[in-house]
């Protein structure tokens, strides 16, 4: 029998380390795998028997003796027995491409990765020209998963077309949106997939150097990425003359320093250059003048991870998932006040209601859901009337909301939406880079005006002022930080006005 207990951040945060110690004390050496993303079941103990791979969860160290006893007799008699892992409905019903390997084994075991089809995409890419790789990415319909949803192939084509001795691949791993952990899960459960995707990107556009800009809030991902890169170099999947091809790609992890704005691509580039993370005006596009002024592909972790799948299975396979112009799968992250939170990978098109009801099973508190924020702190708060919206970039844009990075934060009926609107402005005060006035000063004024509205000081005129301020921020800010902070504020005003006036919870 082989035992698995994750070394993932959430699993560790729920006590996986003490479970591992209890196993060791009982004479069992568990494999420290990544998480399956079913965080509501963490710490999830998996046991590979001769028949199947079964699970117990959520386990604590004190459950270990009884689980070991049950395994000697009848495993299914244990209270925490969940059956074969791959038959747990939450997991079995997903359409996993990016997360197909997540949780299966030791995330930094190179043999394990290759056994599970790892580096096949890279090997395919090594037989193609840069243009052929870019064409595959275009054909796949892949759009940037960081939030802006820009077609990845078009961005790559721009970089490929640039004549430059030096080009860069930059991975945006500054996953700062609340309610998101999809990048973290890739990096902690399957880091080689990201490394492979970046290496393919380098081959495609002719870049020999890559950087992963990782947020400092992710110490576990930092450790695992560094180990994975070191091993990939040793095995010649990175470095000079990759697999004897004559091609070169070097990769390095750089740590951020706690600034949310550095998830904005131009701010990220400034930070990588060792400067304050001040947003740059565009144009020039980073694809033409990016890191150190050179042509640069900046893509999110999930975009680059998807590249491995596309080059392994072909553009058409990937393209067959999804709806409309949103092709492939979406990494939905179900979070906040939710009973069954976790990572749900599905083709685009599933409705928000299906996700929160079928997967989430309602709130953690057991109270009714009041509002759902999709797409991070810059995303709108959606009332129940909008929960049947399919998860598709265009469908969300049509209701003045956004999919963003796919994070869903659920609030129960105790939430004060005026306080949440105020927080949106307050967050912008703390995290604005300060370069443009609507964002830097508008957010400060926004907090003040919301306070006056709630205190009923000249409310009608202050509401007009707040809308006017939101217009200014939306239209006059350099980047999405100032430009989209009004989204949660306005949605709160539109759908939850009673919270600003203290007139009970009758939502619009």
């Amino acid at each position: 029998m082989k035992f698995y207990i994750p070394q993932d951040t959430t699993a560790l945060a729920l006590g996986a380390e003490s479970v591992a110690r209890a196993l060791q004390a009982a004479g069992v050496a568990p494999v420290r795998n990544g998480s399956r993303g079913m965080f509501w079941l963490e710490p999830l103990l998996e046991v590979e028997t001769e028949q199947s791979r079964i699970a117990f969860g959520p386990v604590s160290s004190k459950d270990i003796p009884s689980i070991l006893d049950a395994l000697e007799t009848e495993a299914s008699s244990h209270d925490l027995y969940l059956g074969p892992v791959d038959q747990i409905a939450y997991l079995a019903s997903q359409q996993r491409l990016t997360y197909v390997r997540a949780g299966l084994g030791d995330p930094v075991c190179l043999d394990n990765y290759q056994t599970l089809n790892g580096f096949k995409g890279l090997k395919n890419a090594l037989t193609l020209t840069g243009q052929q790789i870019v064409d595959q990415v275009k054909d796949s319909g892949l759009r940037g998963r960081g939030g802006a949803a820009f077609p990845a192939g078009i961005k790559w084509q721009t970089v490929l077309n640039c004549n430059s001795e030096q080009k860069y691949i930059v991975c945006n791993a500054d996953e700062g949106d609340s309610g998101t952990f999809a990048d973290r899960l890739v990096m902690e459960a399957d880091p080689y997939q990201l490394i492979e995707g970046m290496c393919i990107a380098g081959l495609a556009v002719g870049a020999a150097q890559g950087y992963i800009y990782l947020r400092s809030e992710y110490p576990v991902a930092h450790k695992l990425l560094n180990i994975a890169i070191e091993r990939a170099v040793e095995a010649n999947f990175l470095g000079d003359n990759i697999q004897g091809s004559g091609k070169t790609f070097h990769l390095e992890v750089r740590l951020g320093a706690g600034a949310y704005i550095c998830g904005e691509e131009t701010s990220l580039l400034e930070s990588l250059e060792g400067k304050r993370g001040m947003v740059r005006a565009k144009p020039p596009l980073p694809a033409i003048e990016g890191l150190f002024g050179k042509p640069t592909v900046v893509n999110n972790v999930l975009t680059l991870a998807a590249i491995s799948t596309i080059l392994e299975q072909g553009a058409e396979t990937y393209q067959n998932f999804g709806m409309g112009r949103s092709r492939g799968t979406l990494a939905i992250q179900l979070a906040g006040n939710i009973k069954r939170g976790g990572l749900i990978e599905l083709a685009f098109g599933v409705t928000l209601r299906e996700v929160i009801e079928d997967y989430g099973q309602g709130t953690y508190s057991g109270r009714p859901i009041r509002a759902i924020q999709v797409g991070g702190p810059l995303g709108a708060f959606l009332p129940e009337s909008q929960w049947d919206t399919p998860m598709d970039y265009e469908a969300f844009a049509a209701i003045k909301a956004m999919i963003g990075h796919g994070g869903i934060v659920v609030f129960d009926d105790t939430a004060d939406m005026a306080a949440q609107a105020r927080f949106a402005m307050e967050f912008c005060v703390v995290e604005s880079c300060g370069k443009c006035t609507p964002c830097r000063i508008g957010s400060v004024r926004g907090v003040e005006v919301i306070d006056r509205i709630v205190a009923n000081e000249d409310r009608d005129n202050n509401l007009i002022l707040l809308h006017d301020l939101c217009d200014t921020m939306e239209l006059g800010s350099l980047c999405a930080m100032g430009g989209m902070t009004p989204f949660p504020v306005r949605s709160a005003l539109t759908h939850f006005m009673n919270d600003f006036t203290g007139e009970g919870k009758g939502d619009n």
Partner: protein
Amino acid sequence: METSAQNTADISHLVAQYKAVPGGLLPLLHAIQTELGYVPDTTVPAIAAGLNLSRAEVHGVISFYHDFKTQPVGRNTVQICRAEACQSMGSRLLEAHAKETLGIDYHETTTDGSITLEAVYCLGNCACSPSVRINDDVFARVDQDRFDELVANVRGVGVKK
């Protein structure tokens, strides 16, 4: 407590390590902070000279990022997540509880020097909120009792993890 003004730590080995690294200022500042616990003002001239920057530029970078501290901090850093997912699970109450029981506000250190309290915006643990990070360990579903237990634990009062 040692103040920044008195710190005469030699960082020349770190400057030498990073001065030729493209965009090496952030990695250098992280390295200094890892070694000294903070980035003393007294190190700024050496950083600036080593990386061929003005002292103003170095100061500008240090002050831009929440992570970099210019004063000594407590033996443990406790970060409470203030982002939306944690708010939906009661982190506002947890914040108030933490400030009250520790007797400090954010960015302050307890009088015994054991704990510096910081806000953080997302630890990527949003499916099991509220989240707290203590040094490099993240903790999930932290209610007020759990918070007290964790704090007592790092203060060495002998409560089990």
